[in-house]
């Protein structure tokens, strides 16, 4: 029997950074598979482009900063950022836009602020916002989900579309985007936003084909299933204690509450709680984005405030703002408030009285 003598702490966490990052990557698997079922090979191609770009950018900036390249690359944080960004992007986005996004995420938001653990903002979400405000047209061109495809795009079609803008048979992105009825397809949130400006009511808009075949009346075709599969991954993260329950739960409860209040005030304009939870990237954001250990709040009470406020901003921006979805904006706004939240929610130190 081997006796070891060691000083405290005697209980050691059995996970290092790279294991945590890899677990989150595994948790994304169901969501990614579901997303690629509905939106095609583009999802995988974007992940590949983003991952390669992230490793190159991270390695070159680490080299410039005279930091150990191999050790920092092997913590998988760059890969995770790249994957989180890639699944947020429209599958047929031109490759160079994805690369610009990754350069912003890794180069500017993460490394210029001091590398992993020092970034104020969530790198993937800043990159998403940069791309969204820089290329509004390309960033809102989602391919219609599988049941609504007018054209089925093969792997080589997608590859050509991403790298050249045309499929081998000469279809442009716009043609590839057409849904069965020939009308260019929009995301469910986009559809609602545009529809409301044309004096339709919420319930009228729900009869559109965009909402056919979802698990609930108000959830978009394909979109809701993608959300649910990210929820499964999120529950895995909760189960393995990679993330704590505070942020996802408070975020979801807050969205349900705010959406219901608005829905009760005027059912013609404001979507229901289920509509807001299952469409767009709320469930993905609640478990994978808002729980980023670096840029989120660190105290238990602070996390509840952080999550709840993100939910609040998502509903406010979705209903009253210019953009259809708002997870990225809400997360970035609340990232800015994190130092303040943490300052006011310090837990009581054992043996001391409260404030």
């Amino acid at each position, binding site marked *: 029997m081997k006796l070891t003598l060691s000083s405290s702490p005697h209980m050691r966490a059995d996970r290092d950074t790279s294991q945590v990052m890899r677990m989150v990557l595994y948790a994304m698997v169901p969501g990614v598979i579901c997303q690629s079922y509905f939106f095609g090979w583009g999802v995988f191609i974007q992940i590949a482009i983003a991952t390669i770009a992230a490793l190159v950018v991270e390695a070159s900036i680490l080299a410039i900063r005279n930091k150990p390249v191999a050790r920092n690359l092997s913590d998988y944080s760059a890969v995770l950022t790249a994957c989180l960004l890639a699944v947020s992007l429209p599958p047929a986005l031109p490759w160079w*836009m994805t690369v610009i996004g990754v350069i912003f995420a890794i180069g*500017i938001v993460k490394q210029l602020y001091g590398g992993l653990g020092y970034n104020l903002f969530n790198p993937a979400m800043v990159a998403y916002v*940069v791309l969204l*405000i*820089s*290329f*509004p*047209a*390309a960033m809102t061109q989602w391919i219609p989900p599988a049941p609504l495809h007018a054209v089925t795009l093969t792997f080589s079609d997608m590859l050509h579309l991403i790298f050249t803008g045309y499929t081998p048979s000469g279809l442009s992105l716009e043609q590839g985007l057409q849904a069965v009825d020939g009308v260019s397809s929009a995301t469910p949130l986009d559809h609602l936003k545009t529809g409301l400006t044309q004096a339709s009511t919420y319930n009228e808009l729900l009869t559109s084909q965009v909402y056919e075949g979802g698990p609930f009346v108000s959830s978009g075709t394909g979109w809701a299933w993608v959300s649910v599969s990210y929820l499964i991954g999120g529950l895995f993260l909760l189960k393995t204690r990679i993330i704590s329950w505070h942020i996802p739960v408070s975020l979801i409860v807050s969205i349900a509450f705010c959406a219901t209040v608005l829905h009760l005030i005027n059912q013609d304009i404001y979507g229901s709680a289920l509509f807001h939870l299952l469409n767009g990237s709320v469930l993905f954001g609640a478990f994978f984005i808002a729980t980023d250990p670096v840029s989120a709040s660190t105290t238990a009470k602070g996390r509840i405030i952080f999550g709840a406020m993100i939910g609040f901003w998502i509903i406010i921006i979705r209903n009253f703002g210019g953009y259809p979805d708002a997870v990225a904006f809400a997360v970035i706004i609340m990232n800015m408030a994190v130092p303040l939240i943490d300052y006011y929610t310090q837990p009581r130190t054992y043996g001391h009285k409260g404030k």
Partner: protein
Amino acid sequence: MIMNEWKELTLQGLWKNNPALVQLLGLCPLLAVTSTVINGLGLGLATTLVLVGSNITVSLVRNVVSNEIRIPVFVMVIAAFVTIVQLLMNAYTYELYLTLGIFIPLIVTNCAIIGRAEAYASKNPIVPSALDGLMMGAGFTFILMLLGGLREALGSGTLLAGADRLFGAVAENWTITLFHTDQPFLLAILPPGAFIGMGFIIAAKNYIDRLHAAKQAPASKTVTRIRVTAEQ
């Protein structure tokens, strides 16, 4: 002796104490109008004119104005020169006048100008004050053009677009097209792009300074820097 002082003034204005890069003054127009090279150059020239004029005038009256009322007097002098520049631009470069809009009258509030009046012109004779104003203005203009060029090249793929608005019909063909794109990089033209670009320019300046310092390592370590800090 005099040459040395002039050289120092030039170096201070253009590099060591550059109003935009080191003092970080006048950021509001700097970030707002630098979407193209020509806009930057136009505002830079206007600011330089005001700086030279106000520095000369403040230097002229420096022994007459009592200390207690100096700030209102400086502001009146500056405002007078801004009005002159505004009327001149209205008359001769009308389109540029329209593009720059509110930022021409706002030159009055540019802290770099009152900062130079207070820190230099009110204590020094006319000729050095004029040179100080000219060099500070040139340093400011240089940064405006650099940032404008960066943002224009990234955001619209051109350089010197709209040069005819400043230089008249001669300059109609001066526009250099770097690349054509249907999807311009809008971030560069939007305000966040100005902040990010400015950050990179300041970083580049500090990097060059550090390289320079490392080259002539322990030569002279005592650099006194006049730093004017003020809220805009």
